[in-house]
């Protein structure tokens, strides 16, 4: 007997991919030259590249968020972590002679420490994720300002310039960095059993406990990883503007990141991690933003469009909606039978 081990990709998986495709095609109709890609000095340029370039910070945050949501959690503090890691990067670059690598390491460690804090509140103290991460969301920007001394700290560093706007093998360096992180994450999730365990804990914590899975440790890891991703995003954003703005760095990025995960089809009640689709989701959001900007519509439509998409996706996902549609269909079928 043969068992099909991989079912054909279903509508749920295809929807985000098709949406992205349609979005890009639609935009290219409105905006001529949208699909153009040119190579200048061995570097790739073009609107599509620009989208990917701009999407990297949010994409990284979304990847961390996808895992946290997979464990039935949520991380509202990512914006604050971005501000903190950006602040650490800027202050250490300005005030010390440390190698940029070390500075970057410190910024990443700061982000992971924030994640650890969130994780401890969730696992050891048993505080609901929304509440636990809210604390850092409130206090985090204050901490970031404390680090920068309340100023917008600007810095100059070849290394960070490269991370912000440099190229590597023809591609923007930060895109390469994001690809490396996403691919590495995917490998760790799928080539070890970690991904499976995350999903198991998110879908049914009690069953997982009865199978000997250490859910506390896994949830802790998820938040630390989310801290890491946010810190990376913070470094890129700081490198991009060559400065740390504790007030505005990463503002509302948590919303975009959650939106990306939701578009990917993951349920907010945990249990599934769709890394690839989350990347697509992030690209959809960035394409939308860019499309609205380039199509001449006022930028303010951006927020409204995003809000409408979140609501639409959630309403489609809602089991109530499905039940409603199902019962309607059944009624229709029954009445057609009667006739």
């Amino acid at each position, binding site marked *: *007997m043969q*068992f*099909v*081990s*991989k*079912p054909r990709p279903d509508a749920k998986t295809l929807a985000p991919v098709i949406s992205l495709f349609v979005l890009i095609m639609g935009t290219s109709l409105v905006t001529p030259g949208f699909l153009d890609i040119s190579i200048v000095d061995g570097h790739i340029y073009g609107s599509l590249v620009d989208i990917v370039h701009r999407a990297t910070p949010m994409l990284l945050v979304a990847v961390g968020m996808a895992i946290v949501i997979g464990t039935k959690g949520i991380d509202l503090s990512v914006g604050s972590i971005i501000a903190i890691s950006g602040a650490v990067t800027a202050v250490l670059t300005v005030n010390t002679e440390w190698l940029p690598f070390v500075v970057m390491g410190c910024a990443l460690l700061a982000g992971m420490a924030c994640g650890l804090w969130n994780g401890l509140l969730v696992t050891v103290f048993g505080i609901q994720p929304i509440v636990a991460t809210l604390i850092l969301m409130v206090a985090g920007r204050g901490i970031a300002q404390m680090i920068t001394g309340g100023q917008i700290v600007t810095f100059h560093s070849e290394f960070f310039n490269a991370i912000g706007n440099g190229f590597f093998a023809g591609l923007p360096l930060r895109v390469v960095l994001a690809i490396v992180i996403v691919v590495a994450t995917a490998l760790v999730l799928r*080539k*070890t*059993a*970690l991904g*499976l*365990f995350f*999903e*198991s804990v998110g*879908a*049914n914590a*009690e*069953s*997982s*406990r*009865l*199978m*000997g*899975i*250490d859910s506390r440790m896994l949830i802790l890891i998820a938040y630390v990883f989310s801290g890491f991703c946010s810190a990376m995003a913070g470094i890129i954003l700081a490198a991009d503007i060559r400065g740390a703005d504790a007030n505005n760095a990463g503002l509302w990025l948590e919303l975009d990141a959650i939106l990306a995960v939701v578009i990917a089809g993951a*349920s907010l009640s945990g*249990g*599934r991690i769709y890394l690839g689709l989350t990347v697509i989701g992030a690209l959809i959001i960035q394409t939308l933003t860019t499309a609205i900007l380039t199509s001449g519509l006022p930028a303010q439509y951006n927020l409204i469009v995003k809000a409408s998409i979140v609501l639409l996706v959630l309403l489609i996902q809602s089991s109530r909606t499905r039940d409603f549609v199902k019962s309607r269909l059944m009624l229709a079928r029954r009445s057609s039978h009667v006739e």
Partner: protein
Amino acid sequence: MTDQNNPPLLSIEGVHKSFPGVRALDNVSLTLNAGEIHALLGENGAGKSTLIKVLTGIYVKDSGSLVMDGKPVHIHDSLDAQKHGIRTVYQEINLIPTMTVAENLTLLDQPKRMGLISWRSAESRAREMLRRVGLDIDLRSQLDSHSVAIQQMVAIARALGSKARILILDEPTASLDSQEIARLFELMRQLKSEGMGIIFVTHFLDQVYDISDTISVLRNGCHVGTFKTEALSRSDLVSHMLGKDLDTLHHEQSDSSLEHGNRQRILSLKQVGRRNMLNPLDLDLHQGEVVGLAGLLGSGRTEVCQLAFGAKRPDQGRKSWLGTEVSINTPKQAIAQGMAYCPEDRKHHGIVAELSVRENLILALQSARGWWSPMPMSEQKAIVDEFIQRLNIKTPHMEKPIGELSGGNQQKVILARWLITQPKLLILDEPTRGIDVGAHHEIIQIIKDLCGEGMSLLVASSEVEEIVAFAHRVAVMRDRTKVAEVSGDRISQKSIIQAIAQ
């Protein structure tokens, strides 16, 4: 009994209720008189809760009629039930733990003055309600600062309210201690003397004989019979509940016997117990032996399994594994020793519904190996393929979310999940609950095969017949205590039922 002048308080006549695939109530008729305490008994799935929900308007019956005081009544929602004076108190106290006693008692019906709630008259009304049940507690104290028994009393006080005529108590004693139960019974007797009709659902036979006037037994949605309490012996009652006629069960005994004199002891429990859950008990499990746990619902079967595996942490007693004393307080420790556990509540404690059949199947083994050493996909597929065929699991493909499989197939996947870890001891709690007949037989056969291969099994089941079919030894549970142990030739449905009823 029903003469024209004095019709019964409530009579339920030929009530049917079906759910897709299940007939939950099949022609059930009951009569409840004023001033009567009527015990409603039955195992899981017998239809007790469905009947109560029909009476309280949560479900609408398919057919049949309800007659109160000789007049037919129609109950379409809980408001209708309220209107007719039918009040229910559930085991899980359906009050708001974070609100005060007075707030709970008057919720939704607070007396108002000039459009605003008047707490002074609300409190005096609440005090009146508490007096009815003989309770004198601070009205402004938070409900959850009181013991479960007091909360239960408050719930009854709220239920009685005004115009209550029928009180349904759904397992009110499950989490009470004996003193609290005595207090509750006192209240029930008082209400009875006031002419209230009380329907009392419980698993505890002692309590049934203590308090009830009449006993009705349901089984598989059918009404087995209604009896005067003093005229029904305990063993007859248990046979009615389990659907076994003791007289026909003379020589139907276990075909399994096992010399375990020189067999190695796998797990032994010494005075293992936990307060409010299970009274301390001793239990030994030998290699290649199947030990059955028999008893009625709520007798402590499940708790034995949970404490043995460490799913719940025992607060007293010692465990030894293969002759040496070990601490097995968490599932992780148990699995490391070579134990496995299929819990009773498959949906919440067994399957991981969103994950696929393959993932569910390998999860326990993968967990034992650790996240860093993943099973290669080829190995996974080979194992999953093998067990899908060996246990005859019906699924279109192994990537189907397990939540979409039927109960029997889910159970087989859970079994397979543990079998691939090659445990020395497998604990099965109600392995055949909610499973169709075909799969039922298959699972029993699997249990027998496993034991033939030298695995030890601890199997809790409400089906005495099933236990007799495969157990070498049976521990009989009653009221959270181990009351007897039968082994070898003496295992028969009759002996077990007698031990349960005693």
